[in-house]
């Protein structure tokens, strides 16, 4: 896997109004990597993700994706960036008025030249990958929370984007589905070379999939750890990081 940075953030400061969440973050995400963003609740992980996909504008600094500066106001470059990324939102964000199949088919019919029958076949392949084959004609409201999550991943996968952003993919899933999801992420990463940017809390999932993690810290508003989670677990010089990976409560320190 090449070590070329596919996403890079330089001096990224984010926040809302007077509230500053993170100050001058610098990090690179390499092509073909599974990159996990960690941090305690409320430290701004999801916000960082929304900055990386251009939904929020940074207060300062810049983000580059695939060599292009992320600028939502520049229609041309933003569209080209969007064609390379897929996003799965925390709550699934499936369109409630469409069936599952229609949800997944929407980007495929819109952005490719595939014909009707081929689209249907591809949709069922996508759903098969996330273990939802046979649910094409179900409405999102008829699915459980975990199924909605997996369907949302299938929709994010629809166009086989180079970079996939997943916001808490395994939260609310049973351990088996969660492990299957990890396998799915690893397989997609190997077979298609997809770069993953994942926000998650699941320790087991982190140790299974993550090649590199960054940990955000609310107090210092900065990155306090960057590297392989297996090494950080024991070798980090930051007590909070060791505590996080070893799952120790605050008072036992």
């Amino acid at each position, binding site marked *: 896997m090449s070590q070329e940075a596919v996403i890079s953030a330089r001096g990224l400061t984010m926040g809302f109004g007077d509230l500053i969440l993170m100050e001058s973050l610098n990090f690179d995400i390499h092509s073909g990597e599974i990159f996990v963003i960690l941090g305690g609740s409320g430290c701004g992980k999801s916000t960082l993700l929304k900055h990386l996909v251009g939904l929020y504008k940074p207060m300062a600094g810049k983000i580059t994706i695939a060599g292009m500066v992320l600028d939502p106001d520049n229609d041309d470059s933003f569209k080209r960036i969007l064609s390379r990324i897929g996003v799965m939102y925390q709550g699934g964000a499936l*369109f*409630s*008025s469409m*069936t599952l*199949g229609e949800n997944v088919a929407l980007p*495929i019919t819109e*952005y*490719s*030249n*595939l*014909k009707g029958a*081929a689209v*249907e*076949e*591809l949709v*069922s*392949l*996508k759903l*098969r*990958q996330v273990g939802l*084959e*046979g*649910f*094409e*004609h*179900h*409405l*999102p*409201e008829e699915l459980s929370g975990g199924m909605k999550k997996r369907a949302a991943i299938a929709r994010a996968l629809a*166009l*086989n984007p180079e970079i996939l952003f997943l916001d808490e993919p395994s939260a609310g899933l049973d351990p088996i589905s969660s492990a299957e999801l990890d396998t799915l992420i690893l*397989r997609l990463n*190997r*077979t*298609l070379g997809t770069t993953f940017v994942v926000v998650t809390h699941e320790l087991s999932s982190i140790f299974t999939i993550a090649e590199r993690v960054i940990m955000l810290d609310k107090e210092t508003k900065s990155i306090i750890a960057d590297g392989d989670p297996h090494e950080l677990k024991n070798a980090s010089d930051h007590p909070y990081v060791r505590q996080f990976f070893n799952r120790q409560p605050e008072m036992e320190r």
Partner: protein
Amino acid sequence: MSDSASMTTTPPITIEHTPGQLSLTLSGVLDLRTTPEVLDQLAHIHKPLPKLIRADLSAITGMDDCGALVIFQLRRMAEKHGCELELAGTPAHVRDLLAFLRVDDPPRSAGAKRPRPGIMTRFGMKTIQVWDQSGRHVSFVGEVTVTLLSLLRHPGRLRLGDTVLYMQRVGVDALPIVGLISFLLGLIMAFMSAVQLQQFGANIYVASLVALAMVRELGPIMTAILVAGRSGSAFAAEIGTMKVSEEVDALVTMGFRPAMFLVAPKIIASVLVVPLLAMYSNIFAIAGGLLIGVTTLDLTVNAYMAQTMSTLTIFDINWGLFKSAIFAVLISTVGCFKGYQVRGGAASVGKATTSAVVTGIFLVILVDSILAVILRYWRP
């Protein structure tokens, strides 16, 4: 990026037709960009097909799940025309992908398609739905009534803060639009009737016409329509969204009665402020009529107002206020009820909001007509 341009010029498939064998060579990248063309070419191979289809996959450099559709298509072709399919030189990454996609598993059926019912079925379904809904409507009205009656005994249970907030949203915030529309309505009524009444030298009766029409009918009706549009819809959307995000369920499990928590403040606030709004609407309409009377009909302010006062009775005003209160109950109850009916997601909230406004206005007009008939026989 750079290879995308070359891809479009050289199709990643070459087809060779030799007697007894169809040779296909796939090469390059098979993905969402290139696959549609390959599928297209495969579909246009002229029939009949020879006994053997031989596909050489060795030159494929990249393939994703969209490219796998080509394999599916080849298999279907072979099966349909009864020929043999031979996949040669499958690269490791392709084999890997095909294993990952479990291409050998039979596709599980997509389940029954959502049936598109015929016209009779839909008619029947709609009828059952209306019947069903009227049952639910009755039980909702019953629950709300019980809740409101229980408030008479324990007035402390009313959420006062919410009630005041809704009084502001339904009443105070509606003042500008109600004022403006009523003023213009009075103005137009005076203007139009003046043309007719002037012919008989009955200028002064413009004042009577505006006052009576507004206070007895149009004031309450216009206000009700505006409130239905502004607040009935808002109630439905608010409760509907709460329903979607399980907030209503949370209220129930926390031991609150949604009817007390959500509905009672809205109904009580509406009943308190909508009559005031109607009153306010009357004043502005009379002001509009006055403006026309003074500027185009040579009436003095005194004469116009004296005529207005002598036309209106206390009963007229009370009747208008009474009707407004009834309308307020109708609009707010329907708004809340439609919110409760929401199931599913965003689209359902939209439907409920529309339905709240339409049903609200319909009921207002219907009840107004009934009241008009009752009044006709009660006070001839």
